[in-house]
């Protein structure tokens, strides 16, 4: 490394079919500095990182310069060769293996003794120790990884990145699953690496972390760099404004919000990790938004209430015939529907027909009482009716779900829960990965259902969407309720208020 390490993006653009994800992004990162990369979802952060990681190629004309030399990163291996390493929020580790084996896993052949197949274990341990020492970590290189905390695993991931010759480190939401204490530890490590002259990128939704860790900030919006600033030249309000970039508008849909009585109440819900002591009430016909940053415990809140994760403390109250009474999770599940976030992993039976997917949560309706014999004619009829109702575009109900587009798959899940017609529908990111047209259709469906008296609890990380959809939004931060905003007061600033105040109080 004769020349000084540096990384420069020059005129990077990226066009996906129909979408311009990045346009003319140019900036330079310095060694020994932490560069914060901020922007709302869809601003182009991940596309840029994928280009750097060799997963995507930039359009013609863009260049990446490392230490002044033009480099072409054609695949992830090339990225590693050029000293680029990612530290992701989802820890990549081999649980039953020891720490040093994890750190040096990617390049084992290098560790054979001269001209033999035998591994030089003492050299490996010393090498692993070297990286841990560089971070002042006290992890024992011989312990198995499964005994470690997530924070320590994160450190091991960093050590692995360093062992691969990483000089440009990208931290992508590294704190999402860490405790406060672990976050503090991680920051110490990042500071040490910074002092040793690495180039560090830091991506986070947590603005406070950005202000604590970064030396300068690059703000992306709609695929462009809209601002570059030293951390001391900017404040939080200004940064938020740069990220959002435009005046927000009220919802287009005017919905009469005549809410009924409280139908459901969660009291002091605590899970094993998140959420913590969370309480809220839901009215009949209400669309309640749950808003929080990634890793704030939104999905965990749903999973804990519905008994998919263990509920350590708390109780659920549910209204039958107008009186609220305590209800068990098993009993409660009969009155609700749950649209999960990862639709491919746990939302659909991909290799089964649309019709059988739609009826899966409500088989009782199509079967006789005693023997449970299915009335398939009725099943087909109902499936067709629902496909029409939610407008699934498919040949017929016998088509396999795997052949549908993302938006139509999501509509199949919605149809499935509409068929069950539960009193409450929990929806985790109902429009994620769905095109704009389908997004609006799904929104309209939710409105219609709510007007007929179904209550909704909706998680969405898209601010505009959640504000246009919901009647009331509760804000979750680190598993706690930190704010509640009524429809009249909906604004990004008001929603951020709870989070900002928490971050400042930290």
């Amino acid at each position, binding site marked *: 490394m004769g020349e000084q390490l540096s990384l420069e993006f020059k005129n990077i653009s990226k066009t996906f079919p129909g979408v311009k994800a990045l346009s003319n992004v140019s900036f330079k990162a310095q060694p020994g500095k932490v560069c914060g990369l901020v922007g709302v979802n869809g601003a182009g952060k991940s596309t840029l990182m994928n280009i750097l990681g060799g997963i995507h190629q930039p359009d013609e004309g863009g260049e990446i310069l490392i230490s002044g030399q033009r480099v072409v990163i054609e695949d992830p*291996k090339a990225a*590693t060769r050029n000293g680029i390493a990612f530290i992701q929020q989802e820890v*990549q*580790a*081999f*649980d*039953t*293996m020891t720490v040093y*084996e994890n750190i040096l*896993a*990617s*390049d*084992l*052949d290098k*560790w*054979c003794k001269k001209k033999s*197949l*035998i*591994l030089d*274990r003492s050299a490996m341990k010393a090498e692993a120790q070297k990286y841990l020492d560089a971070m002042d970590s006290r992890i024992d290189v011989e*312990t*198995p990884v*499964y*005994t470690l905390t997530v924070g320590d695993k994160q450190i091991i991931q960093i050590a*692995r990145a360093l062992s691969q010759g990483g000089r440009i480190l990208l931290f992508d939401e590294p704190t999402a699953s860490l405790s406060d204490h672990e976050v503090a530890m991680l920051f110490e490590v990042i500071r040490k690496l910074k002092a040793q002259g690495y180039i560090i990128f830091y991506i986070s939704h947590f603005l406070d972390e950005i202000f604590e860790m970064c030396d300068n900030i690059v703000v992306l919006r709609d695929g462009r760099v809209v601002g570059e600033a030293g951390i001391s030249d900017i404040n939080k309000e200004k940064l938020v404004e740069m990220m959002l970039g435009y005046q927000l508008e009220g919802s287009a849909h005017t919905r009469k919000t005549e809410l009924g009585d409280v139908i459901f109440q969660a009291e002091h819900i605590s899970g094993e990790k998140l959420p913590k002591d969370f309480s809220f009430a839901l009215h009949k016909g209400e669309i309640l938004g749950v808003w929080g940053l990634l890793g704030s415990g939104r999905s965990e809140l749903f999973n804990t209430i519905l008994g998919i994760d263990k509920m350590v403390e708390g109780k659920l109250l549910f209204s039958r015939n107008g009186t609220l009474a305590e209800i068990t999770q098993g009993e409660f599940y009969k009155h609700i529907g749950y649209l999960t976030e990862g639709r491919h992993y746990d939302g659909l039976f991909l290799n089964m027909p649309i019709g059988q997917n739609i009826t899966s949560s409500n088989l009782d309706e199509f079967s006789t009482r005693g023997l449970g014999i299915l009335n398939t004619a009725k099943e087909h009829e109902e499936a067709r009716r629902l496909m029409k109702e939610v407008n699934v575009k498919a040949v017929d109900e016998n088509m396999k779900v795997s052949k549908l587009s993302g938006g139509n798959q999501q509509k199949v899940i919605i149809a499935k829960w509409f068929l069950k017609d539960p009193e409450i529908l929990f929806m985790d990111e109902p429009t994620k990965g769905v095109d704009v047209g389908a997004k609006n259709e799904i929104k309209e469906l939710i409105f219609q259902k709510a007007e007929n008296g179904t209550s909704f609890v909706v998680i969405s990380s898209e601010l505009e969407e959640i504000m246009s959809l919901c009647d009331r939004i509760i804000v979750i931060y680190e598993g706690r309720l930190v704010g509640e905003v009524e429809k009249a007061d909906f604004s990004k600033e008001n929603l951020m208020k709870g989070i900002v105040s928490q971050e400042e109080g930290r």
Partner: protein
Amino acid sequence: MNKKKIDVYSLSSYFVLLAILIVFGIGGNNFLTLKSLYATMNNGSAQILIACAATFGLLVGIIDLSVAAIGYLSGVVAGMLLHLYNVPYPVAFAAGVAVGVFLGWVNSLLIVKFKMNGMLVTFGMMLVLRAFGRLFTNDKTITIDNVKPMRQARIAALGGLQVSLIILVLIIVILQLVLTYTAFGRKLLLVGCDENVANRIGINSDKIKTQALMLEGLLCGIAGSFFWIVVQGSIVTSGLNGYEFLAIAGAVLGGVSLLGGRGTIFPGAVIGSLILLYLASGMANMGIDLFVTPFVRGIIIFIAMYVDALRTRKIMGNRMS
């Protein structure tokens, strides 16, 4: 703290073995003599080596039910060459081992390349290979006399320790060294631990799995064409029958995980197999009904598998759900 806990776990198989030896030593007659201890181990040497072979499959997450059948067919090939053509023993041995490696490669082709269900494929293989073996031998018992000197070689200074046992110990030592000290051994564990992560950090897991299955075939070949036919001196149709189960069970008893990524040859598979061997010979020694043995063995194995499931759940914890 953590370290201590794990030591207890890996020591537990020694304790079980010791307990079996003590119980039968007290209850049986002449059970605890060097000669009988050697004899049990020598008779079980093929089983021990097949357990080691199965361990390599288990480490990369493949439950291979064809191990014993591969050993059987290798033994048949080696034995028939000796019997019919009177070839020198090394040639027969090499042929048997080559058959083993080849069959391991066939398995890897089906499982790794064509992504077929590993357990079913190897189960089918097991039956087909046995049929081949019976076809070659015409279902007859064949006595092989020209390996007699090798079978009877003993070292008097060590209380009549069979030379074949020394060879077995050597193989075990080499295997464990390969597992702990080579890059290959380490990669096996990494692939078994999490194939996706391994692929992502640049380990070619398909290649490693293929190598593991071929090594398995090699060991089965040695087990069949040396430890089975040389130590027993004859080929019978029921040779090595049921050893696939005993091999996997022994490995799991010794702490090799059924889900891959965790386990050792020694103590692991070897001590686990010794537990099963001495349990059987001890029960026979005490005159317990021969039919009861597989029954008791089945229950012990079941418990071992349950402990494995518990341990896996503990380590994987929430990741499993």
